């Protein structure tokens, strides 16, 4: 019987935890989904798309404050520029997305990261649906990692 390739919460948790422990050395715990959508808070979203034998996207969404803390951990400094924060969040989604891609059928290509930031906005990848999503907390801040799969 043919089964659809799938990335579940367990895989998302393991890949994200590995990035957090090996690269950032920051705390990571399960979180509640609704806290990352609180109104009035600056939120950053990074996304990579996978195209080829499997089509979809990986999205990391967190508060700007957490993105800054991640950048500080990566650059080993408390003072980071907005460009460095975008770079850091892009590299985080690149690492998680690259490892997600490796678990799915190939050959496929991983896009360069795209970043969105602002207050009270929604970002969507048209033609996809949520395959799996995990909510985390790190540094007291909410974060979500979502895997989207293209709908035929």
């Amino acid at each position, binding site marked *: 019987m043919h089964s659809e390739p799938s990335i579940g919460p367990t895989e998302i948790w393991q890949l994200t935890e*590995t*990035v957090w422990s*090996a*690269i950032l050395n920051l705390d990571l715990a399960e979180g509640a989904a609704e806290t990352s959508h609180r109104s009035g808070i600056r939120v950053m979203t990074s996304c990579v798309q996978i195209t080829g034998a499997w089509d979809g996207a990986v999205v990391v969404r967190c508060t700007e404050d957490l993105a800054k803390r991640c*950048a500080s951990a*990566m*650059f*080993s400094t408390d003072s980071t520029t907005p460009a*460095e924060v975008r*770079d*850091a969040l*892009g*590299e985080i989604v*690149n*690492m*998680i*997305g*690259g*490892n997600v*891609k*490796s678990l799915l059928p*190939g*050959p496929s290509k*991983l896009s*360069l990261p795209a970043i969105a930031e602002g207050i009270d906005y929604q970002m969507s990848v048209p033609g996809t649906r949520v395959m799996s999503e995990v909510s985390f907390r790190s540094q007291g801040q909410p974060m979500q990692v979502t895997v989207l799969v293209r709908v035929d």
Partner: protein
Amino acid sequence: MKIMIVDDSKAMRVIVMRTLRQAGFGDHAMTEAANGAEALKMIQEQGPDLVLSDWNMPEMSGIELLRHLRARNNSVRFGFITSESSAEMHKTATDAGALFLITKPFTPEAFQSALTPVLAG
């Protein structure tokens, strides 16, 4: 020895250099390039002993950089540090002349395991 780190992410170049020091390679000179095209020019000018390159970059990818180097008969030791690690990519990398492929996220131990035999040779 001179090690060149090629990655479009400044954050990742910082982390690779930090991990090289943690892995015991801090006494080597390190230089940086932000993409394959910049690296190709710098490699010809500086002649590094080892290139550690990301795969997925704007301007020129890591695999394109390696193929350009080999087409010019440049045999610099070359390894990939990339978030993608499928069997297909390993084969593509080794077929093109790469010595190893380290998967992001990585540890100092992964660097020691991959680089020690390469730098000893």
